[in-house]
């Protein structure tokens, strides 16, 4: 359906637009990633509110992470997370072997250094969703081979 392509194109344009604006302005590279992440944060908060409207209450943290991996990821990216690992001490690694926002770019090493820009929004999405569910976290992402990527979620104990 066309709706998937819409989000992909909008997202690519968002990243490109922010970097263009940064070049004309102060030329600060690090701020763009933060802006993207903050955008994702606010969107994640709203999205989670909508998605959890009809689901039952969550029992614990693991339940919430599983919800993110299955229902949340399916609704946003039309597939589930391929692998969830945890050390049971507040660190979760979500692995997606065919990340939708990267599949259109390349399947090799060509654009590897540009990949993090495209993951920042999704990191914010996860962080915003978790924060609305009552979990403070830090989300980072890394790409070793396109289009697979890993999101690492570190839960902050308050």
């Amino acid at each position, binding site marked *: 359906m066309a709706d998937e392509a819409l989000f992909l194109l909008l997202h690519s344009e968002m990243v490109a637009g922010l970097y263009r604006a940064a070049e004309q302005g102060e030329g600060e590279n690090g701020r763009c990633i933060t802006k993207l992440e903050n955008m994702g944060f606010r969107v994640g908060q709203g999205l989670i*509110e909508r998605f*959890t*409207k009809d*689901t039952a*209450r*969550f029992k614990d943290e693991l339940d919430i992470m599983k919800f993110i991996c299955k229902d949340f990821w399916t609704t946003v990216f039309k597939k589930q997370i391929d692998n969830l690992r945890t050390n049971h001490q507040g660190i979760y690694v979500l692995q997606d072997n065919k990340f939708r926002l990267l599949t259109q770019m390349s399947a090799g090493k060509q654009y590897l250094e540009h990949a993090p820009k495209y993951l920042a929004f999704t990191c914010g999405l996860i962080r915003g969703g978790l924060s609305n569910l*009552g979990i403070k976290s830090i989300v980072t992402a890394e790409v070793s081979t396109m289009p697979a990527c890993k999101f690492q979620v570190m839960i902050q104990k308050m």
Partner: protein
Amino acid sequence: MAVCIAVIAKENYPLYIRSVPTENELKFHYTVHTSLDVVDEKISAMGKALVDQRELYLGLLYPTEDYKVYGYVTNSKVKFVMVVDSSNTALRDNEIRSMFRKLHNSYTDIMCNPFYNPGDRIHSKAFDNMVTSMMMQVC
């Protein structure tokens, strides 16, 4: 219909509180505040299987001689508290549930409003109208 409706954030401060007989407002504020304890009790009783743990609707929190207090908690730990006149015995559980659903739907719409910062007081006209429609019958 409802006499007082309150939306309480997860840090337990009110995002929205409105009562219909506008004198005696402080009494309703106090009631809602005390009902928060009961809400917390119900949420944390999850391990003991006293209530249906997976449900968002909490049911009757506690009755007093003038009115009854109902609660509902969302997955983002935002609580809705509704105070209903006791003399209105025709109000059934299903109706209360549907009123909470409407509240939840309106709250979700507010969350998705890009001009709304989560944690601010709710000033939305649409939300006001929806709450008024639930409270109007009592003069």
